[in-house]
């Protein structure tokens, strides 16, 4: 792949938190283009908070966030969507009473009329045949894994350059986790950059190109996913090497 070596996203010494509680204490890292980058770290390290910081949901007290070289620090979600970022948070993020198709259409609600979104919705349904089968069903009737696919598909309606995805595997069956991960790999192949937080760190790193280790709101380590996987300290602290069962 012809690669643009400049990163799609840069966090430069970002600090911030909720109220008086500081979570990010100078978090810095870069996210490569058309690659999967996974952030790991213990609970409370600020992994999800990082995503919120990027997506304009956190008041920053310092630092900068650059998207494609442009300063987007503090930009609102609407502006970020238009600039090509989508955010799939942890947990269930569907609109349960709306149909699968309506859920998808809302992925582009900030960008244009429902009519303008229709071809994109159709393209998303082509990409996810399981969603096409259920296009008219209420989204709440989908399985957990299908709902996660729906969230990813909804994110794609806005044709993002960068997808932030937080704990996509949580609560899913192993089979569904595989499918979700395969979907992310497919997105990477089509040029989307992915920044992922994942509890299931080992499996996530195995499909990732790069890894970032966060601890107490600071970047501890960055490197290729392979290097992170092979790092004995990381293995002991975050990948459960000592209690490995399989």
């Amino acid at each position, binding site marked *: 792949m012809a690669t643009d070596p400049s990163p799609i996203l840069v966090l430069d010494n970002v600090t911030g938190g909720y109220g008086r509680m500081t979570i990010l204490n100078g978090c810095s890292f870069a996210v490569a283009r058309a690659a999967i980058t996974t952030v790991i770290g213990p609970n409370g390290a600020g992994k999800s908070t990082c995503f919120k910081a990027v*997506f304009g*949901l956190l008041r920053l007290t310092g630092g900068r966030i650059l998207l494609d070289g442009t300063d987007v620090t503090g930009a*609102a*979600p*609407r502006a970020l*969507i*238009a600039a090509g970022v989508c*955010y799939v*948070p942890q947990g269930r*993020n*569907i*609109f*349960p*009473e*709306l149909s699968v198709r*309506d859920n998808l*259409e*809302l*992925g582009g*609600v*900030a*960008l244009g*009329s*429902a009519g303008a979104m229709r071809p994109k919705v159709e393209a998303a349904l082509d990409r996810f045949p399981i969603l096409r089968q259920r296009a008219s069903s209420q989204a*709440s009737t989908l399985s957990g894994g299908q709902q996660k696919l729906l969230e990813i598909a*909804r994110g794609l309606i806005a044709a993002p350059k960068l997808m932030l995805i937080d704990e996509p595997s949580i609560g899913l069956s192993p089979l569904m986790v595989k499918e979700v991960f395969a979907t992310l790999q497919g997105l990477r192949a089509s040029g989307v950059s992915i920044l992922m937080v994942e509890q299931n760190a080992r499996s996530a790193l195995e499909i990732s190109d790069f890894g970032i280790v966060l601890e107490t709101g600071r970047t501890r380590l960055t490197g290729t996913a392979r290097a992170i996987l092979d790092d004995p300290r990381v293995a002991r602290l975050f990948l459960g090497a000592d209690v490995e069962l399989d």
Partner: protein
Amino acid sequence: MVGLLAQVLVSGLAIGAIYALIATGFSLLWQGSQTVNFAQGDFVVVPAFVMLGVRGLGLPLWVGVLAALVVSALVLGLLFKRVLVDPMLKHGSLQLAIATMALSIVIQNGLLDVAGGEAFPFPGINGGIDWGQIFLDWQSLIVLAVAVAAVTALNLFLGRTRTGRAIQASAQNPQVAVLLGIDVARMILITFLINAALVTLAALLISPIYLVKFNNGIGIGLSAFSAAIVGGFNQVRGAVVGGLVLGVTETFAATFGPDQWRDAVPMLLLILFVLFRPEGILGRREERRV
């Protein structure tokens, strides 16, 4: 007998369709901003008095309707949200619900003070269709048609337009709606304005039947509240079904039983549903996240 049954059914459906309008607004406020509005019945009485007041100045009814719409949008929509709902909701939806009970008392006593305690007549439509055995009054038929058209239009708006879907998305999952770039605060404001329009329309339709009295809101509010519970509190379609069920049951009870039964029906249905089917006819069980 057939004639009587048909007549009771149609007037029951007509009343029920009005309840459906009021209950729909009630349910929208709940879904959009966790507002249980115990003053919803009084919200119907306020525009009715505005219409009567404008008429009292010798102006035609449609001017009164327009004036009532404006007053409702400003006072029962915007002001209600900004002055009561927004500050109280910070303390919790129960606290807000109690504040709306207080508002109900304020509205009733305010109206009593300004307009007095009598029941004022409201212009309606006379006559009907006479098929020998069956007589159907225009009033009920028109009320039914208008209410059904309004509910249908609202459902199309909510289901088919971008703004409507954004309103639903904001109600169902506000955190995610924000992430998709939806202006959730604006969608909630629109919900309050829709409710203001619904109660104004309900006022126009129900006043010829129930007349206009300062404390009519008590009964109307109870019926609409029961309709929302019976149909399914968390579903707009539920409010429609609940309203119709309630209107028909009430009217049958009042026709074939002692008149006081009319007032007992909503309470009775409310109790039965809360006991045996709390999610209502169409509702789904609420997920409680811990």
